[in-house]
């Protein structure tokens, strides 16, 4: 679909809904529900407002207060404090984040949403955290959903979901300006402001600019990585919210720039430039027909770097998404969600240009929530995605066949089932079963066309979606007398058809050795997680938890770590642990966080067929924050990351430096 037509359809759908929306409808007030229930409330899992303990999936919610006290300078730094979330820092602003292991460079197993809008890049299927246009002060809560949840959230939600929810200027008032200065030549300024433009209209503006030096310690032989590059990050986001026809209408525009070292190809670090723009229109309304959400957005992502032989790798991707959802309560015990989605994603081929790879996807999904017994709720969800793949333009001589090979249709079905039993005020049990799907990313579908004589590397149309089956048992318990909560999870999952973006050059056509994206086999994981969280007299807060997991890869004959660059078995640390202790009294807040990761391996290399495993020793990373309110609305703080040692090996690449920042935040 051409952009103009997509826009016209969007406008028509929105106008039709607005015309039908009644004046009495109201908007979702997260703060109101949170105040009512005494705990964060989420809309994201089933479309129903649900407290975190009642969600039919293992979900953690990090609140704005916890974010403020985290001492982190970015979102991965916050996520690293959560049991079961794996964070591998590869740069001062670059990190690979996965849930329950399977971490890798630019991990594609995570669905990352910002107020319902996809913010991972379709090019790699991965989140580049530095271009997500949100200040930490603008975040109301971060929802972390563990395990495959494609039927509830959409594809890519195979390892889990990170859903970032920001303040709504119709309900929340936020005025914050923050300045930060630290070692590594770190400087950041950010601001978030809401403005009321009458009773029914509000505006929100958020912006940030950051300068940083990347980590100095080198673990690779790549010369360009030996000297730390300067990181530049800037973004601005503006959104207009209006009560219109009884519902809430939102228009949002964002622009983000980032220059940092990432890993676009062959696990080799390269200095990258990203420019990402987005436009979004959304309507939500509580109507007689149900809670209706209509959302349309476009992400425009440009990625630019220079790789081997001075070749320019320039991706430009346009993603257009239209979503419609209706959630209806039927009687006292049943709720139904029906949703439809259309998406169009197109990318230029690179470094050999002159062609486009694109796909259209139509999706239908439904979820049924049934309060079967006063203490038992059952949720069943299913989703079907149908993908039409195409390629247009010139075909390089290095590729056999023609564009017709890309005329493929893929159909993927996913499901989620969850039974939540509230056994009294202190105990909740969850039993969940799920099948998730990870569609191939655009690089795997052929956006990459690299000719490096005598080798040629490319994506291809026959790569299959990856499928993840998961079964899980969770138990939440409150020790009321101790003010402590416990969360336990035991899970087992199997991933089928693991994908790799670029396989080894084993196909020989004349003098050319071709390497394609491919599926290389299966992997199985079992694991448990246990976490405690509580309060103590005197203003103390604490948490302690850990995970134990075992991954077993079963690669196809002929595939190996050497050829594919994949080794989840040795790449997933068998044990992780998190502990934090906080204290607040009067004008003071002091928080410390420790994160342990058992030894593992990271993949590095130069070309497929020559990947190697680099050992990552067990380590403990310590973060902290000391803050003092010097006056009403003014807080000064010292924050630090990796405080325990001068340098820590956390990946196959750079050593993570100790970083310390002095900050001032003004809230008015």
């Amino acid at each position: 679909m051409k952009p103009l037509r997509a826009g016209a359809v969007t406008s028509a759908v929105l106008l039709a809904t607005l015309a039908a929306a009644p004046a009495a409808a109201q908007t979702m007030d997260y703060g109101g529900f949170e105040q009512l229930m005494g705990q964060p409330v989420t809309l994201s899992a089933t479309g129903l407002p649900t407290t975190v303990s009642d969600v039919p999936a293992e979900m953690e919610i990090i609140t704005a207060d916890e974010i403020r006290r985290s001492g982190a300078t970015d979102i991965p730094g916050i996520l690293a404090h959560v049991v079961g979330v794996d964070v591998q820092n590869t740069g001062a602003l670059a990190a690979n984040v996965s849930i329950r292991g399977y971490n890798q460079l630019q991990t594609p197993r995570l669905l990352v949403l910002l107020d319902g809008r996809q913010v991972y890049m379709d090019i790699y299927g991965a989140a580049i955290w530095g271009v997500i246009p949100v200040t930490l002060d603008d975040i109301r809560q971060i929802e972390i959903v563990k395990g495959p949840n494609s039927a509830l959230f959409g594809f890519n939600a195979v390892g889990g979901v990170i859903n970032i929810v920001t303040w709504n200027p119709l309900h929340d008032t936020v005025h914050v300006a923050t300045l930060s200065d630290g070692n590594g030549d770190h400087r950041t300024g950010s601001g978030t402001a809401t403005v009321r433009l009458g009773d029914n209209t509000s505006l929100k503006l958020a912006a940030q600019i950051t300068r940083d030096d990347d980590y100095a310690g080198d673990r690779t032989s790549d010369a360009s990585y030996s000297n730390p590059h300067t990181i530049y990050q800037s973004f601005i986001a503006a959104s207009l919210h209006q009560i219109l026809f009884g519902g809430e209408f939102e228009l949002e525009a964002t622009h983000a720039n980032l220059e940092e070292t990432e890993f676009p190809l062959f696990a080799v670090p390269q200095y990258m430039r990203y420019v990402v723009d987005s436009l979004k229109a959304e309507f939500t309304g509580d109507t007689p027909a149900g809670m209706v959400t209509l959302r349309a957005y476009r992400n425009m992502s440009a990625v630019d770097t220079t790789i081997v032989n001075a070749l320019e790798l320039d991706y430009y991707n346009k993603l257009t998404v239209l979503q419609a959802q209706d959630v209806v309560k039927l009687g006292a015990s049943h709720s139904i969600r029906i949703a439809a989605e259309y998406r169009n994603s197109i990318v230029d081929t690179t470094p050999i240009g002159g062609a486009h790879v694109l796909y259209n996807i139509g999706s239908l999904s439904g979820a049924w929530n049934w309060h079967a017994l006063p203490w038992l709720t059952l949720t069943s969800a299913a989703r079907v995605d149908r993908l039409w793949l195409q390629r247009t333009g010139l075909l390089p001589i290095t590729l056999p066949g023609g564009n017709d090979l890309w005329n493929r249709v893929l159909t993927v079905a996913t499901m989620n089932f969850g039974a939540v039993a509230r056994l009294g005020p202190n105990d909740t049990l969850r039993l969940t079963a799920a099948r998730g799907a990870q569609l191939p990313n655009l690089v795997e579908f052929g956006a990459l066309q690299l000719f490096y004589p005598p080798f040629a590397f490319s994506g291809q149309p026959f790569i299959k979606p990856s499928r993840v089956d998961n079964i899980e048992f969770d138990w939440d318990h409150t020790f009321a007398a101790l003010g402590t909560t416990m969360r336990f999870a035991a899970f087992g999952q199997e991933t089928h058809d693991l994908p790799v973006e670029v396989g080894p050059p084993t196909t020989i056509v004349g003098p050319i050795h071709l390497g394609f994206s491919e599926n290389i086999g299966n992997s199985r994981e079992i694991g448990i997680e246990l976490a405690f969280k509580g309060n103590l007299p005197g203003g103390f807060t604490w948490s302690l938890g850990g995970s134990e997991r075992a991954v077993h890869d079963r690669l196809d004959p002929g595939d190996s770590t050497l050829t594919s660059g994949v080794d989840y078995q040795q790449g997933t640390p068998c044990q992780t642990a998190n502990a934090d202790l906080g204290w607040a009294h009067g004008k003071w807040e002091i928080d410390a966080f420790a994160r342990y990761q058992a030894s593992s391996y990271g993949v590095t290399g130069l070309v497929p067929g020559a990947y190697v495993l680099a050992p990552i020793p067990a380590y403990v990373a310590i973060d902290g924050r000391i803050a003092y309110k010097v006056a009403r609305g003014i807080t000064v703080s010292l924050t630090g990351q990796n405080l325990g040692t001068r340098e820590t090996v956390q990946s196959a690449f750079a050593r993570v430096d100790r970083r310390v920042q002095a900050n001032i935040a003004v809230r008015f």
Partner: protein
Amino acid sequence: MRGATMVLGLTAGLAGLLPCNAARAQATARDAQLIVRTLTFLTEPPQGAAVIAIPYMPGDAASVAAARQAVAAFAGGVTVGHLTATPQLVATPDLAKLSGVVALFMPDRFGGDTRQLAAAARRLHVPLISTNLGCVEQGACTVGFSAGATVQIELNHAACAASGIEFIQAFRMLVKEI
């Protein structure tokens, strides 16, 4: 047969863990916040200054004390969003002529006939709110909550319909509806 026995045994075991609906003794400031916040989720929420009636049984010392405690919980007035609610004591004989209130709040030790309060709520087209979940389950009260370690809120669909009031769908989805 053995399977049925196991299911029954499991059910009995789970039933032993289910929450009991015993009422609590005194209304708290947190209760007052919950009452006023609940009113903001009506499809036609009251705004500005509003009055919440707190009934009591004259001559019943426990009932009077519970009502006074509930009034104290409001500390002169509770503001949530655009709504500021103040409490007003109402003796049960005066319920028939009561008007101008946005809700009735029944203290736990009300001690009187809840049907009388339900009738007043229906006549006034306002919710009857309680911290006794049993009252909601019996159909007399419209909304009930228990504000312990975790908040439980119950909503009686028939009682809402009888009073001609409606809560927004998001609220109905969040709470337990009977």
